[in-house]
């Protein structure tokens, strides 16, 4: 899919706010490894319908991070589970052995599954499928930084492809903090050396945050700035995701 000729992946970048002071872009030492500016995201490519056997599926590339997500269900819950008035959501995130620069390193991210679950359950209308379960399986094919935000965005596309009713698409972006500079959508090298990180998952149309994690030491104005940066980027990312869904619909009609 990446080899698709002629079509360049869409690029998004948060619009700069006038009152936001940008760090100096002319200092050679502050250049990012891939030449982006501090507040510029990597090119994002989404495609639905990547897996035939699944009810819904999606494939995402953001820079070199590649993720594939399958959705199965709603289907009957296992008998061991108790009766539930609302539907259940089951999430699993795994890495291929070749996803990381060193083979087999991806098994360290056990918490990604529960974080994906928390990010999605606020957006899905669980009351529409009582007593049943929706399974979301995500596989990271290549890990190149900001893996979890890409997984979350791709999973919401896969749920939409499966026809699961949702309040809104879910878009996710993260920011890394270096000393006093904020860097959006970090790559792997930046993530490994970051002083702190902030990840936001939100429903852009409703302007609601469904998941927020912060690590490292932040002052309150810095958190404010980072949150605003992420929310702007999420709104632009959601536009790309919507156009991907519309494109899939128009393709199937032809």
């Amino acid at each position, binding site marked *: 899919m990446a080899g698709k000729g002629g079509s360049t992946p869409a690029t998004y970048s948060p619009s700069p706010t006038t009152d936001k002071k940008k760090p100096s872009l002319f200092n050679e030492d502050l250049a990012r490894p891939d030449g982006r500016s501090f507040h510029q995201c990597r090119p994002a490519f989404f495609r639905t319908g990547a897996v035939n056997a699944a009810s819904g599926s999606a494939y995402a590339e953001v820079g070199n991070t590649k993720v594939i997500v399958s959705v199965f269900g709603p289907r009957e819950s296992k008998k061991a589970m108790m009766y539930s008035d609302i539907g259940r959501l089951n999430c699993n995130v795994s890495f291929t052995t070749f996803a990381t620069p060193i083979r087999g390193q991806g098994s360290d991210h056990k918490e990604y599954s*529960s974080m994906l679950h928390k990010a999605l359950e606020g957006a899905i209308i669980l009351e529409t499928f009582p007593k049943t379960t929706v399974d979301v399986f995500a596989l990271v094919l290549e890990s190149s930084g900001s893996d979890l935000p890409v997984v979350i965005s791709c999973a919401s596309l896969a749920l939409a492809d499966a026809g699961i009713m949702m309040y809104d698409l879910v878009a996710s972006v993260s920011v890394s903090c270096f000393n006093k500079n904020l860097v959006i959508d970090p790559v792997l090298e930046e993530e490994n050396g970051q002083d702190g990180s902030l990840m936001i998952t939100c429903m852009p149309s409703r302007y609601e*945050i*469904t998941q927020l994690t*912060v*690590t490292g*030491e932040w*002052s309150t104005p810095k958190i404010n700035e980072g949150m605003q940066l992420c929310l702007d980027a999420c709104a632009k990312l959601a536009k790309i995701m919507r156009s991907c869904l519309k494109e899939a619909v128009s393709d199937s009609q032809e």
Partner: protein
Amino acid sequence: MVGLSLGETHFIQGGIAQDLRCDGRKRLTYRPISVETGVIPQTNGSARVRMGATDVIASVKAELGKPSLLQPDKGKVSIYVDCSSTAEPAFEGRGGDELAAELSNALQRCLLGGKSGAGAGIDLSSLIVVEGKICWDLYIDGLVVSSDGNLLDALGAAIKAALSNTGIPRVQVAAGTSNDEHPEVDVSDEEFLQFDTSRVPVIVTLTKVGRHYIVDATSEEESQMSSAVSISVNRQGHICGITKRGGVGLDPSIILDMISVAKHVSEQLINKLDSEIASAEAEEES
């Protein structure tokens, strides 16, 4: 825990809306906190914290190990949480694993800072013995003995108290060893180093019930929550970590409000906790 009836649900939510909770507290008041240190003598440091009916134990064990390749000049800290089935029948077998993993990840996020080591509550450079070869590995274990809500705050407080209680043996490196060989070390039996825990943050969890949020939610109040945000604040007033639980979305302005409230509440909590730890340490020495 048996589910609540509709009447109980309305009572709890109505009470919170009127700033009067079931046990008579206001929305931003903690339950009584008591701290004991040195409860497990064979560990390097240990503490027990009770927050109302929530009871947790934290212990610190230090072992000599090898630094990681990414940060050869820093020691290593790991945090694990065990949800014992003595706390709640639902924790039997693997029932508590998911909650334990969630708690330990949240604690690591809040206490260990960014990947570069900046912002960590402990100065990891002080754990180095020989750069690139020998360092102290700290294993912090949290145990949930009794569970009545707000486990994350209690565990955060217990870990802070346990680190205050921790003594690391002084290590002498044998002189004359070649640079290529593994250095010989002499671990002292009598000299101990203590941590500076003034930068270890406390965790404040704000639980949203109805249209208000409360601190130190009990189990019953947690069952009524739509979402909860745990904010880690240190003495300097900086945010050291944020974790959101519960699936319902929150408006960004509400989250910023919660951060302001958490900073305010954490000032009292830090002072209360520091005085409790100091008196517990004094009591242990006597």
